[in-house]
């Protein structure tokens, strides 16, 4: 469903960004020759520390950024050549993308449903389903800027799924949520997997990756240093749990930069 082949993404840095990132080079290789695939009916996890390049990879998959080199296909469609088809079949959630604060979750849901070309009846059915699952009904008519972080995140998730997409791309979906809300999100991702969707999530939380993901790709400094099921990774690194495995890899690969 998602095929990433030799993805490299290079950002050109402004003077200000160079100072912020304490680098003398005016380019930043945020993704370095990454290849991976996520299939129907599985959850693929991108695990890596802050700044590893997870968001960059997912934005490329979501057609918001074009790969510098390499290519990505989603449901067989190239993200650069057929971005419209890709957008029809994906849901993309990331914390920099927000819902209009002056509208209610219900208005936003209907609005995006119509932008996806859905009719009102289908939109209503989807809304009942998702709003009931995430407990949004109580605040569906409140303005988004009056909602708590957790409520906003639930609304964002529901809206991003309005068109019942085949591929779900969630960038750190539990970030900043309390454990109850976080649990309802990860439970829903499992439900989506059972429905046969391809799910790709990013996280820097080891336990989440361990429990949620069928396969895990570990990203350090823009490079995918290993991927596989949890047991494959533990076997390969000769460790007991994911955290130990991660630090083994981190010791090995984080030095290589410079």
């Amino acid at each position, binding site marked *: 469903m998602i095929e990433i082949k030799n993805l490299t993404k290079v950002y050109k840095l402004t003077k200000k960004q160079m100072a912020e990132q304490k680098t003398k080079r005016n380019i930043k290789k945020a993704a370095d020759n990454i290849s991976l695939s996520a299939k129907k009916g599985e959850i693929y996890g991108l695990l890596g520390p802050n700044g590893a390049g997870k968001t960059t990879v997912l934005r490329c998959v979501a057609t*918001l950024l074009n790969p510098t080199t390499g290519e990505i296909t989603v449901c067989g469609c190239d993200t650069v050549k057929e971005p419209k088809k890709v*957008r029809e079949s994906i849901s993309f959630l990331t914390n920099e*993308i*927000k819902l209009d*604060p002056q509208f209610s979750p219900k208005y936003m849901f209907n*609005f*995006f449903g119509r*932008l*996806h*070309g859905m009719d009102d009846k289908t939109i209503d059915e989807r809304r009942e389903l998702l709003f009931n699952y995430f407990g949004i009904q109580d605040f569906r008519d409140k303005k988004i800027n009056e909602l708590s972080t957790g409520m906003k995140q639930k609304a964002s998730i529901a809206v991003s799924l309005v068109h019942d997409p085949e591929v779900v791309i969630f960038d750190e979906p539990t970030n900043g949520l309390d454990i109850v809300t976080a649990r309802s999100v990860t439970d829903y991702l499992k439900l989506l997997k059972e429905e046969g969707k391809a799910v790709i999530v990013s996280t820097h939380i080891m336990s989440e990756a361990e429990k949620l993901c069928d396969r895990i790709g570990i990203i350090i400094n823009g490079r995918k240093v290993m991927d596989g099921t949890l047991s494959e990774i533990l076997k390969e690194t000769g460790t007991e749990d994911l955290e130990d495995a991660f630090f083994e890899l981190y010791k090995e690969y984080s030095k290589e930069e410079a």
Partner: protein
Amino acid sequence: MNGAKQIIKKELTRVFTDKKLVISLFILPAVLIIGIYYFMGQMQTAMVNEIEKHVSTIDIQNVPEDFKETLASLKFDAHIQYLEPDEDLTAVKKDILNGTTDLLVVFEEDFLNKVSTYETGGVIPEVKTYYNNSEDYSNAARNNFVDTVLSAYQQKLLKERFEDIDQLTVFRVDVDPESSVIVDDKKAKGKIFGILLPYLITLMLFQGAMSLGIDAITGEKERGTMASMLLTPLNRREIVVGKLISVSILAGLSAAVYAVSMVFAMPVMVSGFGSDSLEGLSLKFSAVQVAELLVILAVMVYLYVAIVALASVLAKTVKEASAFVSPILIIVLVAGMATMFSGNEEKSLGMFAIPVYGNAISIQNILTGELTPVQFTATVGGTLLLAVILTVLITKAFNSEKVMFNA
């Protein structure tokens, strides 16, 4: 174009469900304009009335014997005090300075005698007035006294000297001044109004486009809500069109509110100034002229919104967007002002095709009833061309990850 329609609907909903926005965009400007004009009109009327009501205090020295007769026959209303020939004037002058006395009139000693014994080449006797021209009352008293009393008195003395004073008039110019003025009435009225209106329209439209456009584009970029739209299967062109149309509608509405409230407020203010300046408002337009005006205004709104939108997409923050747009606002205003001072010389067709400037002279010409169809086409075409080019650039910018995501 269903997507564009949805975006327009959402943008309009956003503005019209936000009480603060509605008030600041539509109600406050109208209330302010009517309020300011009403206040100015009231002040003006009150001032004029008060000066008229005021009874002047006038001191007269060496008054000729028959002068009082003239005063009485004119029913001249003033507190008049007659001073002795040898009275010291410093006290009176001081009173004029501090406003307790309005006017001092001094006839030359032996005035009547000097008038009647005048011979050709002799010294002409003088009436001297002292007044304070920084005081409205004093000014009015002096003008009034000279225009009515002294001139009537002079006529009387002239009559005594010449009997038939018509002999003094060799010929007259314009016995009936009204009939001498040959002018297209409509054109003359349009001129006054036409000088100001294009400038105001330009200012109001741009103002509206600026505040709304920056918020709808840079604001959305900054808030992170634009990206959610870029994730839908909508064509980027459709998003751009939706944004441009909704901002145009709102800017147009806001300018219309300004314009209508000004038209209502104008009579209120003008009543204080006298009716000449109001003439332009009694203009009657033909249906064609109204249509032309609306089409020109529509393409102008489109152009301004496109200019603001391009600056807004390229800017990273709302502050930066304002910084980009402000110099453009100045250029637009100068172009509008250029029409106010450009004389009457014929303008070439090319001038009409220049966006902003051409629009302003076209509106001026509509108001004076002399815009030709070719000029109309040139101005609409020129403006539209630039606006479409800008729209293409905006769409390009929407497709650029550098512009939309700083990447």
